[in-house]
């Protein structure tokens, strides 16, 4: 198989086209999978319900039906809105999600663009979405939207720090910013000389893992960090004025970003697409890599959504206090200890 793929060396325009098509096919699919499996099914089970049952076998096509319904809705723009900014905002949010997918490796070669500064790139583009959210809130000419957008901006900026700082620990330990490099480092690693399961960084960076997951939860504006879209306080935040297709874009972006962050967490902490007892150079990873990564993503997503379905919403000041007084000091301590141990060993 590697021969076939190695012989296939398309010109630049064709490879770019293929990459764009792959990304734009993968992103909605991942959003659909997460929405269907977790938002509809797992959430229902946790509330002693069954979830959708009628559309498709056991209701599996419900989200597609909902998508079609969204497409049929009228595309409303409020009277006082800044029309151009209003219409562009959801696209900005979605583009930031699309860009995150560029750097995520599904195996050593199944990656859209194998960047040397992969994790840095991912964290940089994922924070672009806050610009789209601010645009949406500002352009809607609605006080709830503006409040929601400002809350989102404050929250995303506050939680960007622990997110990055939690990643720094992993980067110090792996000695590289490349996502594939981090996978290799975990697969080749050893726990006190025992190479049975490599060295998944969740063991050494457990604190970093928890900080990362908490920060991801806040970045996704999911409960218990969903103040920007708190329907009981500000009736839906920056999404208030959006209908139909544009609302669908926000929805897609939210769930695709959840999938992307779960993928990054599994690359950083769970060994990514690699299986410990199979060498990373193996050709099996063309097929096995995506499957392994998907399985790990589903585990991390389950944790994210499990927390989402369990906890009630924070208060706004508790949110900021949690970021600045708990997560950031903890992650700084984590970096310090990791650095000291790295030098010591």
């Amino acid at each position, binding site marked *: 198989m590697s021969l076939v793929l190695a012989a296939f060396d398309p010109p630049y325009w064709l490879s770019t086209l293929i990459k764009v098509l792959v990304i734009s096919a993968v992103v909605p699919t991942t959003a659909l999978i997460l929405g269907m499996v977790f938002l509809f099914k*797992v959430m*229902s*089970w*946790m*509330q*002693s*319900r*069954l979830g959708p*049952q009628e559309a498709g076998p056991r209701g599996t096509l419900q989200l597609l039906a909902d998508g079609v319904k969204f497409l049929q809705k009228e595309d409303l723009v409020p009277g006082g809105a800044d029309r151009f900014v209003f219409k562009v905002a959801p696209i900005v949010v979605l583009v930031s999600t699309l860009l995150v997918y560029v750097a995520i490796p599904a195996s050593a070669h199944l990656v859209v663009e194998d960047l040397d500064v992969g994790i840095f790139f991912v964290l940089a583009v994922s924070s672009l979405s806050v610009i789209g959210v601010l645009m949406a809130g500002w352009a809607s000419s609605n006080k709830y939207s503006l409040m929601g957008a400002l809350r989102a901006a404050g929250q995303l900026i506050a939680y960007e720090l622990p997110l990055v700082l939690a990643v720094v620990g992993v980067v110090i330990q792996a000695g590289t910013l490349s996502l594939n490099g981090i996978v290799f480092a975990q697969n080749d690693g050893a726990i006190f000389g025992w190479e049975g399961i490599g060295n998944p960084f969740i063991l050494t960076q457990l604190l970093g893992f928890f900080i990362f997951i908490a920060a991801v939860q806040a970045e996704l504006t999911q409960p218990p960090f969903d103040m920007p879209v708190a329907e009981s306080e500000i009736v839906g935040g920056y999404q208030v004025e959006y209908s139909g297709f544009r609302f669908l874009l926000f929805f897609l972006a939210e769930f695709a970003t959840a999938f992307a962050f779960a993928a990054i967490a599994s690359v950083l902490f769970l060994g990514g697409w690699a299986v410990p007892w199979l060498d990373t150079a193996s050709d099996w990873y063309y097929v096995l890599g995506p499957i392994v990564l998907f399985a790990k993503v589903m585990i991390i997503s389950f944790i994210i959504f*499990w*927390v989402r*379905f*369990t*906890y009630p919403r924070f208060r706004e000041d508790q949110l900021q206090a949690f970021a600045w007084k708990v997560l950031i000091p903890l992650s700084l301590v984590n970096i310090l200890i990791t650095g000291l141990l790295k030098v010591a060993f």
Partner: protein
Amino acid sequence: MAPQVPGLIKGLGVTFGEMVKTLKSGPQTTLYPHEKEEPTARARGVIALKEENCTSCMLCARECPDWCIFIEAHKYLAPPRREGGQPRQKNELDRFDIDFALCMYCGICVEVCPFDALFWSPEYEYSEVRIADLLHDKSRLGQWMETVPDFPAYEAGSEAKVKKVPR
């Protein structure tokens, strides 16, 4: 005292346990159109009318808080009960409508009826496509009488007799 599990972890345990319970022994909900839940005997589903008992006294229509009962009647002379007596004056019910689009199911009409003409029935499947079709006339209200359950027995030792539903 047993060591306390921190509330956050306990909460995660609750949702996870609920998920396992749902998957193992089924949900608390029922798949409504396919399987129906039996409403309790005294559930307030729809109001049934026993037309023969109604004297058009208008008490229900007057007491109804949102004016959803419409009654029209006319007087007529019924033949005397005994030979040589006077003809009796009676009310003939022309129209008795309840607009279930307005009704708030308070049950005051059933409480206030002095002649046992109105009853609660637990039937609830009478939704309509057009809102105007929720206005049930006296024949439709009369059909609900078949679904009215018997009054439940009082607890042991009660002196009062259980009322009978007129059939």
